[in-house]
């Protein structure tokens, strides 16, 4: 025992990783690692893998335990002190509904994906790293569920998040994103999630939600955010190590990796549109606009990353320029989708106030007043006449990202972008060149897409009427859905605030 205690950090880490590897003798290696070869990635020397965890491994257990203790202490105090009353406004809670139903299940998907990858990568270094990340991701979903369970006691829409994740039309967007990654091979998964999502795009997901929480009095969410954040930095270093390692191992890997970078950048960009509308429309106290966040975290940070990777021959993702141009539009277009389909959503929407519209004009001087303010003002007039606009129809969905086809042509915000492909005599529709390219590369995979609108028409979603479908989603009609105004959430909040005023005299 004492001898082990005297080993250095590196030696102890080597025993944990390299020491756990062995050459199989009962089965050939390719039978032990059956997923290792089919993607066409060539690895000549796994020992060249530089494990990003090697120096922090020892501290890992101690830190994780410490973080858990702090987290649950904060959650207890939040619950005992009725922390929900410290929020800026009841509207804020909808951002957390979106997080729990849309993002937390992805943490679980990431846990499963890394567990699988941690079994199937032939190199022991990345195998251990993927297994550690798998544990982290499981911890993340647990902390989020525990945090949000408090909100479930007081607000609607939180009750059946797992059931909904597999069924509800807009949750099919993040779900299909991860299903796609997990059904790729282990190397594609590592580029999709480890590199593109965790390294390139994660700051656009976590920072806005956690800063949004901090700005809006949500101490509980800030706490799980910080608890996850220190893991995220480790996951990012794994993501960057993976891409460098694959590009260094063989020049034939470059076109494969490039294709994945292009694909997963675009898929991630589409999923992050949910965050865009959260930042610009859902936070009562705004942090920054989506446009500003995109400029900082993608254009600047991503730009220097891809300059660094250029020495391997890797270029920035295809359509990064289109995504940057879309940053002027995407939050407005997404909020328009949810505003008119909020009768079929498990969170509420509303029209921005005059002050919020002015903020949007200031942040989006090129687009908001010209294209989006008139739309919101028209709906405001309809609301005043007692005809709050709900779209009666079901939207056409993109076959790849599964989002309603509400995005406009690059350079022409007045025209919807329609793209199509033919495959085995059937037509497929896409919202963008990015989504069409992804389909065209793997039509056999995406021809199997479970598109919620088509599934309703096929009779697979509980019935033919919207109410039947919403019951099948397990939505509580009249509570979880519809406008924020008049919702049980809002009435409850107003009653609390009124009681507080009375007590304060």
């Amino acid at each position: 025992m004492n001898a082990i205690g005297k080993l250095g950090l590196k030696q102890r880490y080597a025993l944990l990783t390299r020491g756990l590897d062995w050459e199989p003798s009962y089965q050939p290696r390719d039978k032990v690692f059956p997923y290792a070869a089919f993607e066409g990635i060539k690895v000549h020397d796994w020992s060249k893998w530089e494990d990003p965890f090697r120096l922090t491994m020892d501290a890992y257990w101690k830190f994780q335990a410490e973080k858990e203790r702090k987290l649950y202490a904060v959650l207890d105090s939040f619950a005992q002190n009725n922390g929900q009353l410290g929020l800026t406004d009841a509207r804020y809670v909808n951002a957390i509904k979106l997080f729990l139903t849309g993002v937390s299940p992805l943490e679980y998907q990431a846990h499963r994906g890394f567990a699988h990858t941690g079994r199937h990568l032939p190199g022991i270094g990345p195998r251990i790293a993927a297994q550690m990340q798998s544990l982290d991701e499981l911890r993340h979903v647990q902390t989020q569920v525990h945090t949000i369970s408090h909100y479930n006691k007081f607000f609607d829409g939180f009750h059946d998040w797992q059931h909904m994740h597999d069924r509800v039309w807009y949750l099919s967007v993040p779900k299909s994103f991860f299903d796609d990654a997990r059904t790729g091979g282990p190397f594609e998964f590592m580029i999709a999630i480890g590199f593109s999502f965790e390294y390139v795009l994660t700051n656009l997901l976590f920072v806005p939600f956690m800063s949004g929480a901090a700005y809006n009095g949500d101490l509980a969410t800030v706490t799980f955010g910080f608890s996850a954040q220190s893991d995220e930095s480790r996951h990012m270093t794994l993501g960057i190590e993976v891409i460098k390692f694959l590009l260094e191992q063989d020049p034939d890997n470059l076109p494969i990796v490039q294709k994945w970078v292009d694909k997963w950048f675009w898929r991630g960009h589409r999923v992050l549109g949910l965050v865009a509308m959260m930042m610009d429309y859902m936070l009562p106290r705004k942090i920054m606009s989506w446009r500003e966040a995109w400029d900082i975290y993608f254009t600047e940070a991503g730009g220097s990353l891809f300059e660094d990777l250029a020495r391997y021959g890797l270029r920035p993702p295809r359509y990064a320029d289109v995504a940057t141009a879309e940053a002027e539009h995407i939050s407005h277009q997404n909020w328009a989708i949810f505003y008119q389909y909020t009768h079929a959503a498990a969170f509420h929407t509303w029209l921005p106030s005059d002050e919020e519209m002015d903020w949007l004009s200031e942040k989006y001087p090129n687009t908001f007043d010209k294209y989006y303010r008139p739309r919101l003002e028209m709906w405001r007039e309809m609301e005043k006449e007692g005809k709050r606009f709900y779209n009666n129809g079901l939207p056409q969905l993109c076959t790849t990202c599964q989002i309603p086809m509400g995005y406009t042509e690059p350079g022409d915000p007045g025209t919807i972008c329609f793209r199509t492909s033919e495959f085995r005599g059937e037509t497929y529709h896409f919202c963008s060149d990015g989504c069409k390219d992804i389909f065209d590369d793997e039509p056999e995979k995406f021809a199997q897409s479970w598109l919620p609108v088509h599934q309703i028409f096929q009779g697979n979603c509980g019935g033919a009427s919207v109410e039947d479908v919403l019951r099948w989603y397990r939505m509580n009609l009249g509570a979880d859905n519809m406008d924020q105004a008049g919702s049980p959430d809002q009435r409850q909040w107003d009653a609390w605030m009124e009681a507080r005023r009375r007590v304060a005299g």
Partner: protein
Amino acid sequence: MPIVALDPGYAEKIDVRDREENFHGNIVVYIHWEDHLSFCAAMAFPLPPDMPFGALLQEIIPTYYGMHPDFPRIDWPAVRWTIDGREVTPDPAASLRDHGVHHKSLIRFRTPGLTGFRGSGS
């Protein structure tokens, strides 16, 4: 290029989920009103292919687009139609199929002079 998959027979085993025969005799038809993007996307409808085009004009379009302030002002004979990119002059008595509408066709219509709330395209 063939799909990269672990199973060499993958391409032959897939279940194409949105085949026409899965829609109980209907076809999926998408309809979109140009310059009125307050309707956030084209809408999807499961329709019998022998339904007359006139039923779109009389029933479906008024039901789903009628709440827009531009709607009562539409000059229907002047409306311009495309089906999957082809310009067409619809015959209300002829069926969708007669117009070349097939499973997952996109019908777009433009209403000259009407470009949304205050001309904003919404």
